[in-house]
């Protein structure tokens, strides 16, 4: 592990700033452990709800030239079940529990369920393809502030709000999360998208529409992080198309204190964490900087 990429954010020491993004491989505690084994500095669980959910009908994932579309539909075994399986297991790095719900009360209940087994909470306010949850509630700043403040008062753990890019108000929503007491924000979730098979003339995803991830959304993430850095004072976790050291560095310069990798585990391998970490370490050494000094450097002329 490269030592100059070790960092501290949200009061947690991370071996490196690269976290496994929610929804990717983290469906079981064993999957989280595999990501840490492959070099992730921390992990985020699959989004957990109060009840078990099977997710949308298939196809759930389809590739396009510039990334992947998915409409998993938040499959998860339920927060209690997951917490039970995770308890007593040493994942080897900080674990953020991602939770989704329809209202502040449900979020508070979920927070109480997952807090004993997690090191942080990530609020899914941004899944673009599920009814009544995710971006359906994450585009209303007032509601976001209420949810965040209920969650913050229900736990001692750091609370992060994961934001949707499917709005022209991402900074307002980020500010609302900050006012509610969020320790940080995560940007971005997938971009609402769909694809149609031209021969059968049918939408390919079982859910018809889904979210786009991967390299196509990297520049969108860079702008979101850049704008949030201007408007907020809490740390930002950058996510969207991080597959190489260069894509990681760009998000850090835009203002990200930590990063998440999702689609990169499919387009590269699980070893994407180690590769990006090594490239980042090399860059930091060459530039003669500390990682923390790099955050937001693109804002200074």
């Amino acid at each position: 592990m490269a030592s100059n990429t070790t960092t501290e954010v949200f009061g947690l020491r991370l071996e490196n700033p690269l976290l496994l993004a929610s929804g990717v491989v983290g469906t079981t505690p064993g999957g989280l452990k595999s990501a840490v084994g492959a070099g992730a500095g921390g992990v985020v669980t699959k989004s957990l709800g109060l009840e078990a959910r099977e997710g949308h009908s298939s196809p759930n994932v389809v590739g396009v030239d510039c990334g992947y579309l998915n409409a998993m539909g938040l499959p998860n075994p339920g927060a209690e079940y997951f917490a039970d399986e995770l308890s007593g297991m040493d994942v080897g790095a900080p674990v953020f529990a991602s939770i989704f719900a329809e209202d502040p009360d449900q979020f508070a209940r979920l927070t109480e369920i997952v807090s004993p087994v997690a090191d942080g909470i990530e609020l899914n306010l941004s899944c673009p393809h599920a009814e009544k949850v995710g971006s359906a509630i994450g585009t209303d700043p007032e509601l976001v502030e209420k949810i965040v403040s209920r969650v913050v008062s229900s736990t001692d753990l750091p609370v992060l709000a994961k934001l949707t890019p499917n709005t022209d108000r991402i900074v307002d929503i980020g500010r609302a999360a900050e006012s509610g007491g969020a320790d940080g924000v995560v940007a971005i979730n997938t971009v609402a998208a769909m694809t149609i098979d031209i021969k059968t003339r049918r939408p390919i995803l079982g859910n018809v529409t889904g979210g786009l991830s991967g390299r196509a959304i990297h520049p969108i993430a860079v702008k979101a992080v850049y704008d949030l850095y201007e408007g907020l004072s809490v740390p930002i976790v950058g996510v969207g198309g991080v597959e190489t050291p260069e894509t990681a560095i760009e998000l850090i310069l835009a203002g990200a204190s930590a990063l998440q990798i999702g689609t990169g585990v499919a387009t590269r391998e699980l070893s994407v964490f180690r590769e990006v970490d090594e490239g980042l370490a090399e860059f930091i050494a060459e530039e003669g900087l500390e990682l923390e000094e790099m955050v937001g450097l693109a804002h200074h002329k």
Partner: protein
Amino acid sequence: MGNDKPRIREVNLTREESPSVRTIRLYDPRTSNATPGQFAMLWVPDSGEVPIAISGTQGEYSEFTIKRRGEITAEIHELEAGDKIGVRGPYGVGFSRPEGPSVIVGGGYGVAPLRYFHQRHSRDVSLETLVGAATAAELLFVDQFNPQIVSTDDGSKGHHGFITEVLEDFLAQSDFEMIYTAGPEPMMAKVYQICKTRGLKLEASLERIMKCGVGLCGSCLIDGFRVCKDGPVVDLDRLDGFSEFGRWTRTSSGKKERV
């Protein structure tokens, strides 16, 4: 990425293999170059997508052998020559090339990838096959495998019981060092134990719920191992590291369920 979008193919022929199993053949150069043990995602528009092992190839045509298990596989069973289906893949890691005389142990529709394996390698090395099924009618690819031993759960053909009950005797009278297996997990777990006891090498093709096929979604995890991307074929050392193999699988929501 772009390769992970379904290619629409015309069904070239269909064939009934047993009362619950059919084979379809498609012109699809990408999957026709697959390694035996790899699979593809087959998409029936407006119905859904399922992971199916490649069961054979002929030129640039690929065959898929499908057990009727749910709505989507039932729709595939209804397809006729000329109908359209989507295919993406091949995915995953397949079987290694056999280096010497080897044994194939198959059960139920799990013999599908082993049929392709046999088709690819039976001219180069000697392959002895042991096949089990629920009933005589469900024994698959008997003509191609020309199996040494067959078994049926109901005793309607061959040994009355599980194929693993006769595997040990068969191995005791031979000096094979390598076994390739696919089929119900309890069967493969028994084959694994036999290989451990006798010091034999083994490759097994695992089955889990797969939703993405590309190592993203985590539906197919077994002890944190991505069956769709880093499997489905695994060797004995890999199986040694699993606590869930032979015991637990996962439902669509990620809950554990007895194998």
